């Protein structure tokens, strides 16, 4: 069970909704993934095309919690504005704080992320900051009262996987709130590793949306996250330098 603020989820996979080839594939991928949390961005409407399709309208909103992001914000103030616009929909009170500090790497601005999180907590949001894998920053965010910490595995959409498993594991070790590994996951291996390290969940988008078969990848990610979590709970064996035989040495029949 994953508990974020007042909400409880069976699934530990949080899924982004961007960049799918079409809505039909997306809808099937979302269903197969068994996710209960979907992220969205807030953008201007094309007011001259009222009939343009919107993925949100194709969803049973009873089944999913919406986690809008503040993507596009470069400052805390911009992030707060986007968060308030999202909340004005009346559909959500969770917010993924995303304040980008560099257009090339899309790495989060740590100072603005911290400021935005503090302001949004004061406004009563359920606050999930997307942050770098900096261990001390993660601690500062949880000390503020953030409801989950979402360190990036590697740059957004890069598919490089967890480039600093030490930092991710230190963030998990000190955590008093759920840790969701967010961004940079490329393959089921990456998702399973995050869970084996003890993460409480994984948020991904491009790894599924950009796969050759998004529906199949959604299933793979679901299974990888479940397998990784089970492995973490089961407790893996320590790594040893030399072999230890699995078969007994006694009672060997020799000629």
């Amino acid at each position: 069970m994953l508990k974020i603020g007042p909400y409880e989820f069976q699934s530990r996979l949080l899924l982004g909704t961007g960049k799918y080839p079409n809505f039909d594939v997306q809808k099937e991928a979302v269903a197969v993934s068994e996710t209960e949390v979907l992220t969205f961005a807030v953008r201007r409407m094309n007011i001259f095309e009222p009939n343009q399709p919107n993925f949100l309208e194709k969803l049973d909103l009873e089944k999913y919690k919406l986690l809008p992001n503040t993507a596009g914000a470069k400052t805390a103030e911009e992030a707060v504005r986007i968060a308030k616009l999202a909340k004005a929909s009346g559909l959500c009170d969770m917010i993924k704080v995303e304040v980008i500090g560099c257009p090339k790497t899309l790495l989060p601005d740590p100072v603005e992320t911290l400021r935005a999180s503090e302001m949004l907590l004061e406004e009563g949001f359920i606050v999930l900051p997307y942050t770098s894998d900096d261990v001390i920053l993660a601690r500062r965010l949880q000390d503020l009262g953030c409801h989950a910490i979402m360190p990036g595995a590697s740059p957004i959409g890069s598919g490089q996987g967890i480039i600093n498993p030490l930092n991710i594991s230190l963030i998990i070790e000190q955590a008093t709130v759920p840790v969701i590994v967010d961004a940079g996951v490329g393959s089921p291996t990456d998702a399973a590793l995050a869970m084996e390290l003890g993460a409480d969940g994984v948020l991904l988008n491009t790894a599924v949306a950009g796969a050759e078969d998004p529906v199949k990848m959604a299933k793979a990610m679901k299974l990888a996250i479940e397998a990784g979590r089970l492995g973490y709970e089961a407790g893996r064996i320590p790594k040893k330098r030399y072999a230890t035989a699995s078969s007994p040495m006694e009672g060997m029949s020799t000629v």
Partner: protein
Amino acid sequence: MELTINGEVIKLPTNVLTVADLLTHFQLNEKIAMVEVNLSIIERSHFAETKLSNGDKVEIVHFVGGG
């Protein structure tokens, strides 16, 4: 009345008086739309009573796919 909607100056007929009228005019009243007027966010429950004035800056946004 002229409004700046999503950065574009648009002339509106005289029967558009409120935020709710504006959304109906563009056939967006059934959509999940969030509205800001002169940097103040308008709650859905206040759409009908929020009057618009010439020169107001209006933002109409919605949820799109994102990660």
